[in-house]
Every structure is written in C-alpha cells, then in structure tokens.
C-alpha cells in the first residue's frame, strides 16, 4: 500500500473545528485536519502548542468542548462512543513506554489479546513472538521491562500495541526520552510500519524523520493548525512562525 497525498474518500481520522480547554486555558482552538488510510502524519510544533492534547483527543483520552472527531468510523465527540470498540482499532504509544513492570515482555504483549480478544494463551504467545520479531526482540520475551534499555522498552511498547492489530497507530514523542542511538532503532521500527502501510499519526521533534517518512506534516502553533503540507513544507515554510520553529529546531 503506498502513501497517498490526495484526499481519500473516507479518511481514517478527521478532526473538524476541535476546541479543547483545560479550565480557562484554551489548548485547541479550532483544529481541523484529515489523515487518510496508509498515511503517516507528523504533528510538529513548539512545546505547549497542543500536540499531545490533539493526539489524546483522537484517542478519547480527553473530552472536547466543540467540534467533531471521526476515527475509524467512531464518532469520538459523541457521548455514546463505544470506547472498547475504538480501542480495538487504535493503538497508542507514549513517551514513557508504560510497560507493566511486574509482567515479562511476553506477558505484557499477551495481556490485551487474551483479555480483550479472548485469545487462548497459546495463540497469544504465538502472536507475541510474531510482533516481537517484527521489532527485533524475540530474544527478550522472558525478560522484565527493567532489564531492557529504553529503546528496547519502547519497541516492546510498540509490539504490545501491534498485537491488537490496530488500524491506526498514535505515537506521542516516543523517542524523546532516548539517546540518539536508541532513537535510531525505534525510528527504524516506525519506518518499517509506515512502509507496510500502517496509518500513523506521530507527534515528533525529529524533523529529519518527519521529512523522510511523513506523507503529511501538521505544524501546530498556539492551539491551531498553522501550516500543513508534505514533508517538503519543512524546506519551504510559508509562515514566519514555522520558519522560526525550524530555525530553532535544527
């Protein structure tokens, strides 16, 4: 499946005029963008511009005050949203990995398939081996998270999400806690996923990665989508804010 820039018929994710405040603090101020099937969208922007909040809204971890969000056919803004059904379609990976410390790598991965999809232990174990080999960590199945490097833990977290066979993957600054070498191994896994056609939205500070892998770049500033385009937009910013941001970021 190839990444496409043309607007697909029904986007996997569609935000329309989304407003979100924490008390008096307006964090999202009319955000709209679409992500089509197989697309890789990179959200970039200064700290505090609302990137994580946008991602969390997409996954129904925050409630919005205004606007609509459609994700894989689920109306996130609808109070009657079936969260469990949404969870089957969307995986998310956080900056802090959030592996379960008392479970082995394999048990971390097997938990959701057995609990949510009622897979047998055997099926789940096979699945765990499969997704672990996908991220290059078959050998670590019986280790505990604390025995792994940060980069390895993050790859396990990605594998844990993949085991649920999501249609959409969200990544929130998944390499920010890692040194450059470990960052590289995690980005490689994400690049593979992108090449295989996974629809992905990633919040990132890795401009080179965004330019290379993303089919769509969304630059957020002060809670708004300030500029959006392809990776090439980073070489030719239209707004002074993006120009300044790239100037600082590189």
């Amino acid at each position: 499946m190839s990444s496409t820039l043309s607007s697909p018929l029904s986007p996997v994710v569609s935000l329309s005029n989304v407003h979100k405040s924490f008390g008096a603090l307006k964090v999202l101020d009319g955000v709209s963008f679409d992500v089509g099937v197989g697309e890789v969208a990179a959200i970039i922007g200064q700290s505090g511009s609302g990137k994580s909040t946008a991602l969390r809204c997409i996954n129904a971890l925050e409630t919005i005050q205004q606007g609509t969000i459609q994700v894989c056919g689920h109306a996130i803004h609808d109070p009657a949203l079936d969260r469990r059904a949404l969870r089957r379609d969307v995986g998310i990976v956080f900056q802090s990995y959030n592996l379960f410390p008392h479970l082995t790598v394999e048990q971390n991965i097997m938990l959701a398939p057995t609990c949510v999809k009622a897979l047998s232990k055997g099926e789940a174990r096979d699945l765990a081996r499969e997704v672990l080999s996908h991220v290059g960590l078959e050998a670590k199945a019986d280790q505990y998270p604390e025995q792994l490097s940060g980069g390895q833990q993050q790859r396990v977290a990605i594998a844990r999400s993949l085991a649920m066979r999501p249609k959409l993957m969200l990544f929130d600054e998944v390499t920010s806690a890692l040194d450059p070498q470990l960052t590289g191994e995690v980005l490689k896994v994400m690049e593979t996923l992108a090449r295989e056609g996974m629809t992905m939205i990633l919040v990132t500070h890795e401009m080179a990665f965004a330019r290379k892998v993303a089919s769509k770049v969304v630059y957020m500033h002060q809670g708004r989508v300030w500029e959006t385009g392809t990776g090439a937009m980073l070489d030719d910013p239209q707004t002074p804010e993006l120009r300044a941001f790239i100037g600082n970021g590189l």
Partner: protein
Amino acid sequence: MSYQFDFAALLPYWPEFAMGMWLTLQLSAVATVLGFVVGTLCAIGRADGPPAVKWAVAAYVEIIRNTPLLVQIFLVYFGIATLGVHVSANMAAVAALVVNVGAYTSEIVRAGLESVHKAQLEAADCLGLSRAQTYWHVILRPAVERVYPALTSQYVLLMLASSITSQISAEELTAVANRVQSDTFRSFETYIVVGLLYLLLSFVVRVAFWLFGMGVFARRRKLGTAL
C-alpha cells in the same frame, strides 16, 4: 528470690497447648484470607467507588481504628447473638477479627493502589482492558507487592491479637493457657511457655508469608529487586 520453677507440671498439658496453637493458626489464617478480601474490596471502593461507598468505607475504617479490639469482639459476639443467630465462639471470633483486620488492610492496600502510576491505568485503558481487568492484571499485583511487608506485619499482629478472643472463650492458645494455669497454679511457667509458643507461631507465619510472596511475585523471585 527463691522461686522454684516447675515446668514439668505443664507436661501433661502438651496436647492442649498443641490444640490451642492449631486453633490460633486456623483462626488467624481464615481471618487473614477473609480480612484481605474485605480490606481490598474496601480499598477499591474508597479509591474508585461512588461517594456513598467512599463515605461508608471511611466511616468503617475510622470506627475500627479508634475503638479497642476487645470491645469490637464483644460487639460482634453479642450482636450476632441478638440477631438470634447461633454461632460458636470460634466463628464469632473469626468474624470479629475479619471486621478488625479488614479495616487495617484497606488502609495498607489503599497506599499500594496509590503507588501505581496513573500512566499504567491509561496504558491498560488504551489497550482496551475493562476496569475490572485493569484492577486484576495491572493494579492489584504491583500494589500488593509494594505493601507486602506492611501486610505481613499486620497479619502477624492479627495472629497475636487473636489471643484476646479467649475472652469470648474461643479455645485458642491463650484460652488454653488460662485454663492450664488455673489447674496447675503454675502461672509464670505457663505464660513463659505460651510466650515462646507465640514466638514460634510468629516465625511460622512470617515464613509462610515469605514463601507465599515468592510464589506470587514472580518478578521479585527472579530479579530480587523491589518493584
């Protein structure tokens, strides 16, 4: 000081001491298991329940922590009798101990629950786990592992405190001691022996908890580090 110790006078009573120890262990074991269940449910109710449940648990905990165990035992014993239900002294003793240790357990487990990072719950939620599945697989085991030493101390204390159920004539170790010393008039020797037997029981309980912990907390067994 010319007190003549005479432990030999107690020898004929060894089967009674043994029975008393056995009953003390049984009372404590049942009260520990039920008290853990009650206390854990209360802790979850207080952390995550509707306001009425939170208030009820808070009131229960405060009442138990601020009244003497002996009074609680009498209240349960005579309370059950007033309801017209006939139960043995041993059953009433277990009920009273459960009510008591359940309150202390809920406070300890609550600290454990609070030690589990919110991000863990979010990760479980995002994987699609239900609330109950999250509690069972993600929250409870690390929570209990972190407060396991405190729980162990609490249940050793429970075993020692069970001696007070002799007051409603539950036939545990202290009740046996009371009877033996009035038969033999060897009070000092009797309580020296009983003290040593309680020491032995404490040791047994601690070893049992250690073994159980090693069985349940696989990560700790393998890595030997605190969670």
